[in-house]
């Protein structure tokens, strides 16, 4: 997913994505999601292309990208482990679990392991509050995560 493409290719793919989606009402968020799906992040080189095609200023597009937590300005690791940090998970030991995850991976939230394998991210609610604490590894959900399961998730992500 996170393949570093040459600049010209990024611009070309961006143009194709924008062309496909610009007919939607309010197309900017769908376009940014598609770009992040394609490249794994929102490369800088996309912004002028999007701005030109949607008749926006670069600043407006940049402002939208930076407003939303989901859009990355840099590629993530090969796997993304999200831990829920919200109240329901706190009530079931989520804070302790987060500390354990940080220790296992040797990184803090928003960081990627040096081998590029795992990015650790906080998430504020996965809607799994009835089986907290919860986590998401590459889009797969996990509930009632205990130390054993966390270790298994980390091992899986490190592979």
């Amino acid at each position: 997913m996170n393949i570093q493409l040459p600049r010209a290719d990024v611009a070309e793919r961006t143009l194709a994505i924008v062309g496909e989606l610009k007919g939607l009402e309010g197309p900017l968020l769908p376009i940014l999601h598609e770009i992040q799906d394609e490249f794994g992040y929102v490369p800088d080189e996309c912004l002028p292309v999007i701005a030109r095609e949607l008749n926006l200023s670069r600043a407006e597009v940049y402002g939208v990208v930076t407003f939303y937590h989901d859009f990355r300005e840099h590629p993530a690791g090969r796997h993304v482990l999200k831990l829920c940090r919200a109240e329901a998970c706190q009530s079931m030991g989520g804070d302790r679990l987060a500390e354990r995850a940080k220790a296992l991976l040797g990184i803090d939230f928003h960081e990627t392991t040096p081998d590029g394998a795992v990015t650790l991210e906080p998430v504020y609610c996965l809607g799994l509050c009835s089986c907290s604490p919860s986590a998401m590894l590459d889009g797969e959900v996990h509930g009632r995560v205990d130390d054993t399961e966390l270790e298994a998730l980390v091992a899986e992500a490190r592979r």
Partner: protein
Amino acid sequence: MTVKIYIPRDAAALALGAERVATAMADEIAARGLDATIIRNGSRGMHWLEPLVEVETAEGRIAYGPVKASDVASLLDAGLLSGGAHALCLGKTEEVPFLKRQTRLTFARCGVIDPLSLDDYRAHGGLRGLEKAVAMQPAAIVAEVTESGLRGRGGAGFPTGIKWKTVLDAAGARKYIVCNADEGDSGTFADRMIMEGDPFVLIEGMAIAGIATGATKGFVYTRSEYPHAIAAMEQAIEIARAAGVLGASVLGSAHAFDMEVRTGAGAYVCGEETSLLNSLEGKRGIVRAKPPLPAHKGLFDCPTVINNVISLASVPIILDKGATFYRDFGMGRSRGTIPIQIAGNVKHSGLYETAFGLTLGEIVDEIGGGTASGRPVKAVQVGGPLGAYFPRSLFDTPFDYEAFAAKDGLIGHAGIVVFDDTADMLKQARFAMEFCAVESCGKCTPCRIGSTRGVEVADKIAAGIEPEKNRELLADLCNTMKFGSLCALGGFTPYPVMSAMTHFPEDFSPAPVWEAAE
């Protein structure tokens, strides 16, 4: 006859291993050459029993749970297909007390049907509301909804019918129905369950709203954290479109209505309706000042109905069974049913739909069964991260919009998070401020700056620096945020903070133990 086995596809069930159970079941059925089929239903809402496997027998559906993949072979050995006895057998699903005591109106089909079978949906009473609506005058539909007493289930509790009437009466060549499915509150999952377990009911509700107000286009704005709900909604919309439920001629009538799903990008504040509208338009999710109301100038400046998932999903049954039927449930000015979501440190976690009026204590102690940890309940946060923390002494508060407001709380989207006696309420108050600081859209000063100052003041109290003075400062800051913020994010963050400080003063006194415990 082919036996039907139900294994949920709801995200909570998946998070507890439902996919592995389904795979193991399919393998065993094939290996044993059994005449059985697996249906991936939504969740019944008994999440402590997930994955909950059900089998259809002549006596009704029999439930087993919580089932692990490794239990599948022994279940089949015990005669699962005919509802055989097994240590995991819970008896008839409908007779499980947690389910039996509920009044399921909005969630009547959730967990019962195949969420993506329109035939199943129809067979269980689906589309009756819409069929009635297409034959009615728009004003009559609005009157029916107003009469039912339905209030916004997103949290604000504004009468749905009045909102619809404003849009119906507003002049505009183009109008929109926007469904707020940006369910970001911790402790809530009702919207997710409906979208995954009965997506057609939301589509039906939105189509009725469209016909009632003259809107022809709808958007479901949901969260990127909900990939399963997004997939289910998108598939259901395709199916509804192919069957003529959506499109140029809704159920063959002269009304046109179509809809699409839009995904947010991890911003909590986009659950605020005006911020959501900006986000849908492709802008930063900055809150708009009101007026103008979205009903007058909403999406792309057009008259817009913006309702929560549960509000819209409650409309079909109101149209089907009539306003009086729905209004007869509930208490005071809170009419109908409310899906209470019981979460956090609680034994019987899940979704419990019931008429308004149960007390908080009944919900937590009797229905929820106390804490999962077995320790005493210390506090209950009701209504998400912007809701107040209630101590045991307020457990006699009835679940009702006005009763909660009278106790300086709110029912919000009806999520309840239970904490045991290990919870540190100063830490929870600090978290509320921190969350507000992270998620503030930045438009108004009390929210943007106040939340950051709030974290600092909480830290000073924790460190024992002039505690009395800083407690006063925190209260003053909360007052400013409550009355000076543009939207509920800054305006309601004081609820968890002030309730924690008022009801649990012992946690706000400087004690060296706190630092050591940290």
